[in-house]
């Protein structure tokens, strides 16, 4: 091998090795890379009552109930499960039924998620309002598929 080929091999080995190490590392800590849990995760393995977690999913159509003041109750769902959520505070502008959200809070012993913060999770679809009106169906316009399970059953 010439010097040049040696350098080529060394750089190739470096990139392949780093790629492999990164793949193995991130596969091992997949759970830690997840920004939120899904309703299916909560159903499969209820987190302890004093653990603060993030819960991500779609706001179920027809589930939003406004209480007095800033109190609001709604249900968050992914493709399989649902979790009831209670929250008191200001909701982001994009919060609406059928919209993806990420809430931070705790799951109580009664299975109700009490949120301290609610963020809107926008999806990747962009369209003018006239088109959006034509596309509405009973499930809303958003896909539940983008919520990936953390706990594998």
């Amino acid at each position, binding site marked *: 091998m010439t010097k*040049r080929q040696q350098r*080529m091999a060394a750089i190739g080995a470096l990139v392949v090795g780093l790629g492999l190490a990164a793949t193995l590392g991130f596969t091992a800590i997949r759970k830690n*890379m*997840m*920004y*939120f849990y899904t309703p299916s995760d909560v159903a499969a393995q209820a987190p302890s009552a004093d653990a603060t977690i993030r819960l*991500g999913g779609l706001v179920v159509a027809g589930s939003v109930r406004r209480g007095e003041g800033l109190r609001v109750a709604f249900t968050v769902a992914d493709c399989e499960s649902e979790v009831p959520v209670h929250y008191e505070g200001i909701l982001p502008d994009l919060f609406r039924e059928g919209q993806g959200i990420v809430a931070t809070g705790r799951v109580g012993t009664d299975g109700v998620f009490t949120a301290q913060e609610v*963020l809107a999770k926008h999806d990747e679809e962009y369209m003018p309002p006239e088109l959006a009106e034509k596309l509405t169906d009973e499930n809303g316009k958003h896909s539940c598929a983008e919520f990936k399970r953390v706990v594998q059953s």
Partner: protein
Amino acid sequence: MWTWFHRLASPPHFYRLAERWLPWVGVAAAGLLAWGWIGGLVFAPPDYQQKDAFRIIYVHVPTAAASLSLYTMMAVAGAVALIWRMKLAECVLVATAPVGAGMTVVALITGMLWGKPMWGTYWVWDARLTSELVLLFLYLGVIGLQQAFEDARAAARACALLAIVGVVNVPIVKYSVEWWNSLHQTSTILKLGKPTITADMAVPLYAALAGTFLLCAYAILRRVQNELLWRERRTGWVAELL
């Protein structure tokens, strides 16, 4: 077959080639950016949910795409510099880093400005945002490493190694939104399959994307020219030129 490659590597040849290309690249960049930004900011319809706030896409997506592409280019230039000891590749490497860092900063800031009204927060530590921030630190690391050396060639070689090691982060940024749960949405146009944006919104976006890449090309070519002049300042062709 390799003659064009060797000719391209010759500093005076490349300098003159860049000089000839630069006006065209500049005019095309200005034209495409004007089309993309006027079309996107003025004529495109508002989004059904985000209203006018979605228009940040015409700056955010092109700069974010450029931040990843430029890093990849920088790593390739680094590999060429290390393997073939090509001076021009070293110049491209050190010329690209500040441009890429600038694109990363713009992408991060526009994303934060959009995040506050839409998500409800400027920043979260999810996989996409965090890995893009790491990308900025990698760019800054390359810039800092280059400044730390007296000898330009030794500096470029160290930067090349850092650039190649950091390239692992590029697919992580790109696919973070698919591999893991994140607050950030998945790709709208730069993905396999049909873009999830209507044509009247997408066409200015493609123009802004092409314009941003050409603007980066313009800035990098000019910086490569400067780097070549400085490195070759004691040679005949530079004396002749100036």
